[in-house]
């Protein structure tokens, strides 16, 4: 926790964020919000030349390990949270793609999550409260610092995944978990038709895996596994539970233990300039979505059968229209400008009304989410 001198300097940083947004709003001059700057190519192109850097507003505001919650400023990195909580044998089980140098503000603003979402959910499930500076420069809070809270309308969930179009996130309170006694990872080679078998197994077993990602052969090879369709599984709990759960997966093939560093490799696998989309459907439809994605040449594909998500990593030649050609919903993460033109904007009147309510001058990341102002 920061001391008094630091805290007055930090207050000035927060005021400068608020002032910058007020000024931009008064002048009608759009801002591109930026955390640590690692993913500036994510989202639709936003026509804003002025950068509002939020990464300097950083540090832990409050951490009481016994409460299993932590309050941090928006620019705090996932790595700083990881180190502070590890000292008390706790963790924030949130592993978005990229690395731990990303800020919590950007992670929350983009609702980013990774393989651990299978067990722990997404930012929607892990964020308890937020402070943000709206498009008019008002500093508002939703939620709180306790694990259960229904006071007021849910500004927290509204902000999560809003891509900085409604406000700049300056503080977040997060739910933490105690580290499990056992945390084991293993890989199982499966054939291409194994996706449905993995889904059916996960539906049937009396436990939840921490993570279960199916990787196509190219992706498996990229992170140092044999070049075959592979189920990469992570289990957590007490030793007895994990040992028994591991047995249940033997039905798919022989589990080969892997170091947990494999997850870090998976998170960091996408190259700069990649085109990345997530396809989402009901779990029973995942095998079909997977099959269609896996037919695309030169892509890295991974799928979470329990969550119904297939993630496709390609390049500027990725045919977005073809990928969308199904019942599934698509969330684009990073695309070329030409590819973005293939992705329709948000439908309905409500998104535009929300945007106007929180950012009436349309100065925060305009256009990045495909909402008409």
């Amino acid at each position, binding site marked *: 926790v920061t001391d008094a001198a630091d805290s007055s300097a930090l207050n000035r940083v927060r005021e400068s964020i608020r002032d910058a947004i007020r000024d931009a709003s008064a002048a009608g001059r759009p801002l591109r919000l930026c955390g640590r700057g690692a993913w500036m190519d994510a989202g639709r192109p936003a026509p804003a030349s002025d950068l509002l850097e939020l990464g300097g507003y950083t540090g832990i505001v409050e951490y009481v390990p016994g409460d299993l919650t932590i309050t941090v400023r928006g620019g705090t990195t996932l790595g700083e949270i990881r180190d502070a909580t590890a000292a008390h044998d706790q963790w924030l089980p949130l592993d978005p793609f990229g690395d731990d140098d990303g800020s919590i503000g950007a992670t929350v603003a983009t609702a980013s999550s990774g393989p651990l979402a299978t067990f722990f959910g997404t930012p929607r499930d892990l964020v308890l409260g937020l402070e943000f500076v709206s498009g008019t420069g008002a500093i508002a809070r939703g939620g709180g610092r*306790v694990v*259960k809270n*229904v*006071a007021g309308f849910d500004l927290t969930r509204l902000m999560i995944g809003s891509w900085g179009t409604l406000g700049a996130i300056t503080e977040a309170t997060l739910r933490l*978990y*105690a580290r499990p006694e056992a945390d084991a990872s293993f890989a199982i080679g499966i054939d291409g038709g194994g996706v449905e078998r993995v889904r059916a197994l996960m539906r049937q077993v*009396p436990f939840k895996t921490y993570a279960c990602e199916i990787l196509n052969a190219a992706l498996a090879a990229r992170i140092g596994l044999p070049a075959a369709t592979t189920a990469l599984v992570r289990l957590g709990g007490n030793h007895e539970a994990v040992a028994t759960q591991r047995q249940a997966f033997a039905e798919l093939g022989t589990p080969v233990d892997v170091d947990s560093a494999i997850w870090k490799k998976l998170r960091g696998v996408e190259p700069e300039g990649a085109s990345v989309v*997530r396809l989402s459907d009901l779990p*029973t439809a995942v095998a079909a979505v997977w099959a269609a994605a896996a037919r695309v040449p030169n892509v890295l594909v991974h799928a979470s059968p329990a969550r*119904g998500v297939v993630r496709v990593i390609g390049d500027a030649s990725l045919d977005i229209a073809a990928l969308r050609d199904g019942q599934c919903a698509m969330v684009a993460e990073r695309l070329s400008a030409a590819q973005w033109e293939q992705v329709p904007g948000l439908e309905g009147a409500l998104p535009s009304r929300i945007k106007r309510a929180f950012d009436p001058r349309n100065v925060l990341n305009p256009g990045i989410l495909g909402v008409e102002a």
Partner: protein
Amino acid sequence: VTTAVISQIDQSLADRLAEIVGARRVLYRPSELLTYSSDGLPSYHKQPALAVFPGTRDEVVAVVRELAARDVPFVPRGAGTGLSGGALADGVVLIGLNRLTRILSIDVENQLAVVEPGVVNVALTRAVAQHGLHYAPDPSSQAACTIGGNIAENAGGPHCLKYGVTTNHVLALTVVLPSGDVVTLGNAAGEQPGYDLVGAFVGSEGCFGIALDATVRLSKNPEAVRTLLADFMSLEAAARAVSAIIATGIVPAALEMIDQPTIQAVEASIYAAGYPTDAAAALLIEVDGALAGIERDVDAIEAICRANEARSVRIARNEAERTKLWQGRKKAFGAMGRLAPHLVIQDAVVPRTRLPQVLEEIDRIGRANGVRICNVFHAGDGNLHPNIPYDAANADETRRVHVAMKEIMGACVAAGGTITGEHGVGIDKLPYMDLVFSDDSLAAMCSLRDVFDPDRRANPGKAIPIHSCREWYLSPAARASL
């Protein structure tokens, strides 16, 4: 139609609504409306001018459109089991959703159900039990409360410690906005680009519109369940045990605390569960999940309780014993009816490490004001439920109860907590909202409400305080002329 505050609620409206839903489903005589003049909190009484009970989704939409055309405010209501006064209609139209009770579809393999808003919480769990599934949010009123009401209040329950509250289980909604427009929010597959409109709607206390159907997640029944009752000679020791259990990393399915006054009320009632009446507090602890490894968690929890001076730890030996232990907890509010004719129930949440100190403070406040406080609550997530039984006919006692309530709320907020964990703000907690939210935060919430209901006709005067509630009772045209 006699008590209408708004002149638009007249015979012609009653006649028109009767054309939509049938004459039997429109009530406007004061004697008929009495049933709808309170909710689960017996301390508030407000009578609607008219109550209408549509039987189908199309009827709901037609009713809402008729009210929109006539500029009439309304309050949606499920089973009326809420504990915040949120479903009370004060001189406006009440729309009862309890006839929309169909489960529209169940998808066993994908663990989803689509339900109408009037489906009773436990009815959904019963309907999917044959598939080894259940609907996880389990408020104490689950035998009566509806999923629509649960969505409006973002209801919790004992098992949300492990499984999450209502918002963690709702994937998609079809909603009729107060304007009469019908919109779809969210996606059964759980992910779609754009704002989290489902997240915004759940917990909006009937101010954003009416859910016509909800796609909810179903959870697997656990392979094994173990329920423990540990009793302590001090509240402080019980609270320390709670913190120690949480710190292990074992996430119990439920972790409930019941203090001595509550134990005695329960044991004297028809819901007697065999709790030890001489204990200062008991913890009802449940762990569930896969059979493999569960006994180790049970052993660890038992050891923690004993290390924190538990006098005894009892493990339910069978389903009947388990049900009995839970019955006492779930019917505790009902058992309070033996103590006094009226009851206030608070719902503040505090950081879990602050429980020992806050419970001591609540005890002090009770003594100082000469009121009896019964604590029965979700200790695992710090969600307190101090209950104060009293007689509203006694003006002095009523005054002391309200002073104590205010002091308890202040103590919880000062400890870093919030004013409501699962009951909602309604009208009951409106005076406390500015203890936890700044003017700018409340203004942001108001502007979100205006996105869904620009005319501010849905559940007027609830959830968010405004400086003068009077304007809510006027038509938008009249308000504009203020």
